[in-house]
């Protein structure tokens, strides 16, 4: 039962990253590469009809986490208080940027919201990578100092950083060199992903440039990914144990590799959706491999006194979880239906759909 919800949550998270990821990435491309009004409009049109439905996956995932693993939800959300609230502010600013830009046709007005949208997208990609880093690295559950817990064993509080920026420091911070590394991987991979989406959904003049960009960024992504693999062992004890015990799980690291390998061929692709496909494979593989590596833990404990938070010690009551399954499965089938319908209605190139010209 817990396993069902664990898989459901990871799936929802992955879908969220793939979907909202492409509009974050599009925002980053927008910030650095879209100079002409025509290109800007093309990018806005390519994400316009989708972005808020994409964000719903975050909201729904948060709701499901609250309901299935309330103890984890309570501990993690209060422990990561500041970064989470800042993510909320960024999400709000970014949404204002998208929605308001087109409402007034004035150059200064456009500049403000262009930058807001772009910078917020960039920071969100960075923050989500950092968040993943924090989950893998773990936190000082119970706030243990000198062998004594300051709080109940599952609560903690993390400052934004500590002076040493080290994942091995006595007092951990949200940002250290390891989490920052995952943050950078997040930014690079989502930029590629967003570029892939733009190529897929528009006939923009940018597309040829974006293909070259994807190729170059892919080299950086490969280097960073290999580097993270190298330091993995110093962060996660027994880093490959789960994979060795369940060899089927090797499919996920394999997907990551296929994704990167495929992206190197971007220049030669015949179909415009191919780039997006391979970046999607990379994201699925990277995300799931990272999370599965620490299974059954959700949030490892960095001290010896308090146990890690796992899917077994944080779940809600058995009855609630089992009745939840019926409406959840029903709901997800409907959601898939809406998604198919929505993406069919807005299939093909969206350059002229008019989302960016609603004034």
């Amino acid at each position: 039962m817990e396993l069902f919800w664990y898989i459901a949550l990871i799936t929802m998270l992955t879908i969220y990253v793939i979907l909202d990821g492409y509009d974050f990435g599009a925002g980053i491309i927008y910030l650095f590469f879209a100079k002409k009004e025509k290109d800007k409009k093309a990018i806005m049109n390519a994400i316009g009809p989708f972005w808020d439905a994409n964000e719903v996956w975050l909201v729904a995932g948060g709701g499901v986490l609250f309901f299935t693993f309330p103890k984890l939800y309570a501990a993690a959300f209060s422990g990561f208080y500041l970064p989470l609230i800042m993510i909320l502010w960024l999400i709000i600013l970014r949404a204002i940027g998208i929605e308001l830009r087109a409402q007034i046709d004035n150059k200064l007005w456009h500049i403000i919201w262009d930058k807001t949208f772009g910078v917020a997208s960039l920071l969100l990609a960075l923050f989500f990578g950092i968040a993943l880093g924090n989950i893998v690295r773990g936190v000082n559950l119970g706030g243990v100092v000198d062998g004594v817990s300051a709080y109940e064993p599952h609560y903690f509080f993390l400052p934004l950083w500590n002076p040493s920026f080290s994942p091995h420091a006595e007092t951990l911070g949200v940002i250290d060199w390891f989490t920052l590394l995952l943050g950078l991987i997040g930014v690079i991979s989502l930029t590629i992903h967003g570029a892939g989406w733009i190529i897929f959904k528009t006939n923009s003049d940018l597309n040829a440039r974006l293909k070259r960009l994807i190729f170059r960024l892919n080299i950086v992504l490969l280097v960073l990914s290999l580097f993270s693999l190298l330091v993995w062992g110093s962060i996660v004890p027994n880093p490959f144990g789960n994979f060795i015990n369940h060899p089927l799980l090797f499919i996920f690291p394999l997907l990551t590799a296929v994704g990167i390998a495929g992206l190197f061929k971007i220049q030669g692709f015949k179909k415009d959706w191919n780039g997006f496909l391979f970046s999607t494979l990379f994201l699925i593989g990277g995300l799931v491999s990272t999370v599965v590596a620490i299974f059954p833990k959700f949030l490892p404990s960095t001290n010896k006194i308090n146990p890690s938070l796992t899917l077994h010690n944080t779940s809600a009551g058995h009855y609630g979880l089992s009745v939840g399954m019926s409406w959840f499965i029903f709901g997800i089938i409907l959601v898939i239906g809406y998604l198919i319908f929505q993406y069919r209605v807005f299939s093909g190139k969206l350059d002229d759909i008019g989302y960016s010209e609603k004034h």
Partner: protein
Amino acid sequence: MEDMLFYDRLQFAFTISFHYLFPVLTMGLSLIIVYFKWKYLRTKEEKYNKIAKFWMRIFGVNFAIGVVTGIPMEFQFGTNWAKFSEMTGGVIGQTLAMEGVLSFFLESSFIGIFLFGEKLVGQKVHFLSAILVFLGTWLSGLFIMATNAWMQHPVGFTTLENGNFVLSGFSELFTNPWLVPAYLHNQTAAVVTASFVVTAVGAFYLLNKQHQEYGKIFVKTGVIFGLISSVIVAFPTGDWNAKNVVKYQPITFAAMEGVFETQSTDGEIVLIGQPNMKTMSLDNKLAVPGVLSFLTYRNFDTEIKGLNEYPKKDWPTNVPGLYYAYHIMVGLGTLFIGLFFIAIILLWRKKLYQTKWVLWSLLILSPFSYVTNITGWYVAELGRQPWLVYGLLPTSAGGSPTVSSGNTLFTLLGFVGLYFLLGLLFLILVGKIIFKGPETQK
């Protein structure tokens, strides 16, 4: 710890009050948009389609701000009320997750299709997407009300040894006697607000002598929806809610009505007066004997229990605040019924569009329909104090054990700044759409 609780409550109160200004319009307006779109399909008159799209555009801006200010609400359960979330997540996490999965996807997928897909999907599917958006917003309301109903009157749960609550009866969450009256009251109140907004824009057009053809349709539609909904808000749904409060939260009832001393016969209804917490009485009281007994028990003589019957520690923590919230809600609500009634009479006698004082009143009173919704929620939330979950979990025990008050004040200030900006932008944008009028809708 005192400070901490204060900032947590202030942040939640501020963010939820601001957030609710948006869903209250989307829930009501989605119904009126469905009506206009239906009217277009039936009459084939292009103006109704333009009207539907005009309101959908305002709806779109409103919806976007509702979504982005709604995400912080869900997060704040965990960030600021961790202990509450941990203890109740097994029960109300269920309804909140249902909202996410069953209604948010519905709304967000079909609003995109409604706003940008008319030419792609054709008229019938376009109408259907309006209905689905309406359905999504009302379902969303249902799950939120089911969550709140559980906090007001917990049912269908068992308490574990560690004090946490887990669900034991799923269907009880939806058959909760608190839920149906509260839901209907809330939804019809949202329709009142939307009616006021539609009417006010129409009245503005008529008084300003622009877009007059549309102005007349807006005023006519608005006052009809307005009269029906504002009556239902008071009776039967408001009355029904009050009876629930008497039954399940009698202390709250005494506080909101301003009854300090038990009245053994002829329970009087207070119209005006200021609660004085030193003398435990109302200053400058204006009251009508017997009416409260009648409204509550359908009998002019029945005893009404006062706050003096209960230990002070069980009283709502802010008696004057609760009393004012309730009286503002009821006072304005009564005024709305009166005004819409006059408007309907004039409409029937074909004089409404020329009667300036009524158009002005409709225009000026429209923001107050938001006030009634917000104060209504204050009645529910202040009335529930000192509990988070009535009778089970005190508010003081629900906060996050590891978050300091300095951090909460920091984020509160951030929200205040950000929301000020949001509010300003919203007014500018919607103002712009209104000035431009429905005629130019493509």
